[in-house]
Structure formats: C-alpha cells, structure tokens
C-alpha cells in the first residue's frame, strides 16, 4: 500500500523546494509580534486561595496567561500559512521569561523580547503600552501584525492591547475570531465577534491594509484544512518544541536604558491611574432569607422540589 503520508510529505518538500527557487521579495514576508503576559496560574494544584476567597499570590504559581496563549496560537497560524517570522514580547520581571518560553513553544517564535526594569513596575495600562510601543518600534523589521490576548486573567482590563495599537498608529481590530492575509495586496481579512447587551451576537467581516493590531477573541480558532497546511503545521510545531528547549538562545532582555524609553512615560510616573484602595467586598445585607435544609434527608428534599415546582408554575404538573 502506498504510504499516503510519505507521499504528501515528499510533495510538501517539493513545494518548499520550489519556494526556495523563487527569490523572495520583501513584500512576500510577514512579520508578526505577539504581546503576552505572565499571569497567576488558575489551574487546580497551582492556584492557592486565602481562606477568605481571595487569591494567595505568594503561593500561586505563574504561567503564560490563557488569552496570551490564544494570541500565540493566532501567530502560529501566520507562521504555518504565510511562513511568518514571529516575535514574542513581554514586559515583566525576569521570571516572565517562562511565559516567553511557553509562547515560543506554541508559536515557533524566532525572537523573544523581555522588557524588564524596576522603573517599569507599578505601571497601569498606559505606562505598559508605552514600553511595548517602544519595544515594537525598536525591532529592526517592521511589524505587519501585532497580536494581543483578549485580556489578562488577573487584571482583566483588556486595555493594554488597544492602547499599544493606538500608540503605534496601527489599525486596531478587536475580538477577532479568524483571519487571513493576502500577501500580494498586503491586506488582511478578519472576522470579529461583537456581543452587546440585549442584542444577538454579530460576526462582522472586515478588510484592512497591513499593518494592523489584533486583539484576539477567546473563541479564536485556527483551521488547517489543506494537507500541505497540516504538514507545515507539523514541521513548525517540531521546530517550535526544539526552539523552546533552547529558548535562552532566542531571548533578548532590555532594560529601560537599552530600550530608550522616556522614563516619565513609563512605570508609575507614566501611569495616570493608581489603585487607591483594595477592600473586601462588603457583605451585602441578605436579600433573601434562606431556609436551611439537610441535604441528606429525602423527606426534606421532597419539600424542596415541591417548592421548586411552585416557582415554576408555568410548568405542567403531573
């Protein structure tokens, strides 16, 4: 029997070979950056809560934020489909290199940039966006697409992405669930999921010239339908794993000076907002008076169900 897989693989190599024959023009290439964040790991066994229900940050492990992970997957789609060169960028403490490594393993990134300096600490989204803007503009190649996650799972503002986009002067596309690039016309087509209070969800398809900044929706999915795409997927995935094993070879760390940021625009001085107070949510006055039932007593459960039935008066009762 013919080994279909081998045939496909050979075919794919030929395609790659053919590609090499063509002198790549500059406009053929695609540069993708992803901004990511190291966040508390909310998975069971890694997360720790205080007795009052708040997060115990000291005991909780850190990991690549889940939305950052989705953004890295979106970048990998560009790697597979358009042979893009991927850059992963983050601002954070030195241990944030862990998140860069995790994102490299997803995206097969060629460069990992960590912006780390005590001066950056305490920044709000505006002060963070400034560091990321300078970082992205410092890269020698011009970025065609910059991805960010939907929002961080600890801060949950979702502001850093669009704010970085605006500072870069890139067209911002939010809530993107899929995309494709036309390398010849240098345009992108993207589908966006828009959900608004009291309205049905809408999927909007848009087209824009590159460069763009995309904040990726949590429901984003990459589709690799053609066999050649799946083969490229496997090839780059292998490469990604190898690269991530030696991620330090790809890592560049920049402090404020090396980055050349204006120190009044980053960290605390560059942050309009401050956290004034963190308090426990006051216990609201009881809105209902609960009747406490022993859950192991079938007789009491029977009464509960009777009351549930009464509440659902519109239902047909046996």
């Amino acid at each position, binding site marked *: 029997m013919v080994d279909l897989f081998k045939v496909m693989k050979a075919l794919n190599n030929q395609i790659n070979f053919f590609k090499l024959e063509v002198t790549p023009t500059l406009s053929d290439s695609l540069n993708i950056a992803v901004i990511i964040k190291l966040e508390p790991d909310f998975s*069971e066994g890694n997360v720790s809560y205080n007795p009052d229900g708040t997060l115990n940050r000291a005991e909780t492990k850190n990991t690549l934020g889940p939305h950052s992970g989705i953004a890295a997957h979106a970048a990998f789609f560009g790697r597979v489909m358009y042979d893009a060169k991927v850059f992963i960028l983050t601002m954070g403490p030195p241990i944030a290199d862990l998140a860069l490594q995790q994102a490299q393993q997803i995206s097969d990134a060629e460069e990992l940039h960590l912006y780390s300096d005590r001066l950056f600490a305490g920044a709000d989204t505006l002060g963070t966006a400034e560091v990321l803007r300078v970082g992205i503009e410092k890269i020698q190649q011009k970025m065609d697409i910059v991805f960010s996650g939907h929002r961080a799972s600890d801060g949950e503002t979702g502001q850093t992405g669009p704010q970085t986009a605006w500072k870069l002067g890139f067209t911002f596309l939010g809530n993107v669930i899929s995309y494709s690039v036309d390398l010849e016309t240098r345009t992108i087509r993207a589908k966006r999921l828009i959900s608004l209070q*009291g309205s*049905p969800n809408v999927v909007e398809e848009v087209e824009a010239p590159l460069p763009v900044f995309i904040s990726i929706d949590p429901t984003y999915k990459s589709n690799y339908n053609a066999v050649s795409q799946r083969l490229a997927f496997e090839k780059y995935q292998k490469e990604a794993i190898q690269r991530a094993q030696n991620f330090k070879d790809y890592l560049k760390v920049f402090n404020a000076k090396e980055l050349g940021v204006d120190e009044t625009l980053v960290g605390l001085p560059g*942050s309009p907002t401050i956290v004034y107070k963190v308090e426990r949510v*006051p216990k609201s006055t009881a809105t209902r008076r609960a009747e406490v039932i022993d859950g192991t007593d079938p007789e009491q459960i029977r009464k*509960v169900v009777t009351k549930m039935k009464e509440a659902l008066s519109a239902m047909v009762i046996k």
Partner: protein
Amino acid sequence: MTEKYRHLYVVIEHEDGEFLPVSFEMIGEARRLLDDFNSKYSLNEKVVAVILGHNIKDISKKLIEYGADVVIFADNPELKDIRNTIYTKVICQIAQDTKSLGEIQPEYAGEVKKPRYMFFAADSIGRHLSSTVLVELESGLASDINQLVIEDIEMSHQQKTGGKKETYEKTLKMYRPDFSGFLWTTILCLDNKNPAFQRDYHPQSCSIIPGVFEPLKPDSSREGKIIEFTPTIDEKDLKVKVLSRQIIKSVVDFDTPRTIVSFGRGIKENPEQNIRLIENLAKELNAEIGVTLPISKKPYSVNQALDSKYMIPDRVIGTSGHKTSAMLYVAVGVSGAMQHVWGMKDSGFVVAINPDEDAPIKDECDIFIKGRMEDVIPLLIEEIKKQIQIVEA
C-alpha cells in the same frame, strides 16, 4: 475659579439608531452623580451625551428625556459602521472642541479645554474605544466599574505628590470588582503633582458594566441642548472596510429558559463526575447551565468535550458575563462572590447546594441545601422525576 476641565461626557452606544440599555444606564448614573456634585460644589456642570452615527439627529432628544443636559451628535455616512479609528478620532475631536464646550454652559466658555469625566460602556465596542480615546487624550481609564463616588481626597503618594500631602478635588472614585469577586478595588485617575514630572490627567474616565446602574424614567418634558458637531473626516482613518455583518445564535441561551443550573469551584473534588451530575440535573429541569467566572478560567482538567462546552466565558453568570432573571436558579457549589451574585440576584426562586453554611450564597437564596452535591443531586433528581414533568415547547 478658572477650571480647564468641566462636565461629564457619556459616550452613547446604539445599533442603527436603537439605543443599547447601557446608554440610558450610564446617563442615569451620570445624572445622579452630577446632581450631587453640583449641589455640593455649587456648580452648574452638565451631563453631555456624545453620539456618533448616520441619520441620528432625530433620536438625540431621547437622551435628554433620560437625563442628559446636552447632546452632541456627529452625523456622517462614514460613521454608520462603528470603526475604532474614525470613532476614536471623532470622539477626541468632540472632547477637545472648545466651541461646543463653550456652548454647553456659556458661563464657563473660553476656559474649558476638556471634559472633567468621561463614561464608556464596558462591552465589545466601548472597552476598546475607551482605551484608544484615552491614549489620544493622554489620560487614565478604569475598566468594568460598578460603583462611582465623587469627593475630595487628601493624600500623599510617593510618585503622584512626591510624598507631600496634597488635596485632589472632585476626584472620581471608580470601584471595580476583581477577578475573584471578593475584592473591590478603587481606581483613581490623578494629576501628577510631583514637581519631578508634573502632568495633568483629565478626563478621569471609566468603562461601566452594562446592567449595573438604573436608568431614569424617561421624562418628555425635560429640556436640554442639542448640538451638532461637524467632524473632520480624514481618508487615512477610513482604512477598515466592513464587508458583512451576520447575526449568529449564541450556543448558550440565558434569556429563554425558565431554569438555570450553575456551578462553581465546589465541583473540585471530582470535577468530571460532578459536571455530569449537574448535566443530569439540568436535563431534568430543562435548564441552561451557567458557571462562575473562576470556572471559565479552566481550573480543572476534565475531558476536552466538557471543557470546551462548559468552562467558557460564554457561560459565565456575573459582572463579567450574563445577567439572568430566571424563574428558578439552582446554584451548585457556588460560594456567592459579589460578581456572581450580581448576575443571578434577579432570579425568581433560588436554591443553593453547598456544604458550607458560611458561604455568602446563603444570603442570596431561598433554600439552602446543606450538603455535598454528590449526595444531594441524586436525591433531587429522583424527586424531580416524581414531581415535575417538563413539557417542551
């Protein structure tokens, strides 16, 4: 006194002329805040609704009925679709337009440069729009707010004041629930008074969670000013083309079912088996299944099918998800964090299943079944089968 910043601007959202409820909610809260503010400081600042779109002149006056003093509208065919770049530019033009700022309240004309406060909706549109607008206006933004207070604050802050005690007048205290739902964070947007890097940060701005604030009852006798603003449209801000818009049905429906069964971290002892139990309970009650915010962060590893079906943001009931007013709400292993309670408190009849009698959910339910879900749910299912027969429509 000369003040460069006055008034409260509310960025209105609508879909082809139909206002989103959050627009009226924001105006209602703005009205309440500014009425207090004006009487406390003996001022006459205004609630200004800002609306962009095409063919919207006629709908503007409705915003006055709901509590706005002034409506500034920009009507242009290029504003029909909501596109971030052009919307950001036009909103910023309006916020810095000294002519309309002068018209709003002539006694302050000439001195006012920007709004004092700005509100946006915390949804798919307002979240991003607020972010980009506030970069352009070079000021601060707090997201997902559920309480607002204006007062003078005296404080010393290493960076903001250089360690000196300073008074920040008319400061907007912006409260947001954190991801756990147990903490409430107050965010302030403050000028840098530190001589080392002095800078003004106005407007003080936030995005507001839809459904949190009450709208005012519309009053058709209310009077206000309607100002047309002619935007400057630059071709380079129109790069995005909207090719199509398609309405899709959400996989999760919290609006039609009469019963919702939701679960939280209480499933942790045996997540997969417990989710199956909850599925069975929901099936017996013909209920939709909701989750708490922590569950959407996928804290447990369960099989892929259950994971992608249930541990998703689309199912979250609470401030960062949906609000329901189901006839029957069954909360299984839900502790009752504020952010979840907000999403379910309007339900008709609430039953909680929880082994911990100190859990805050006890104050939000009609019946508190004390016990482990592993023990309680099978008994419940058995009894429901005896007593309730669901007839599907």
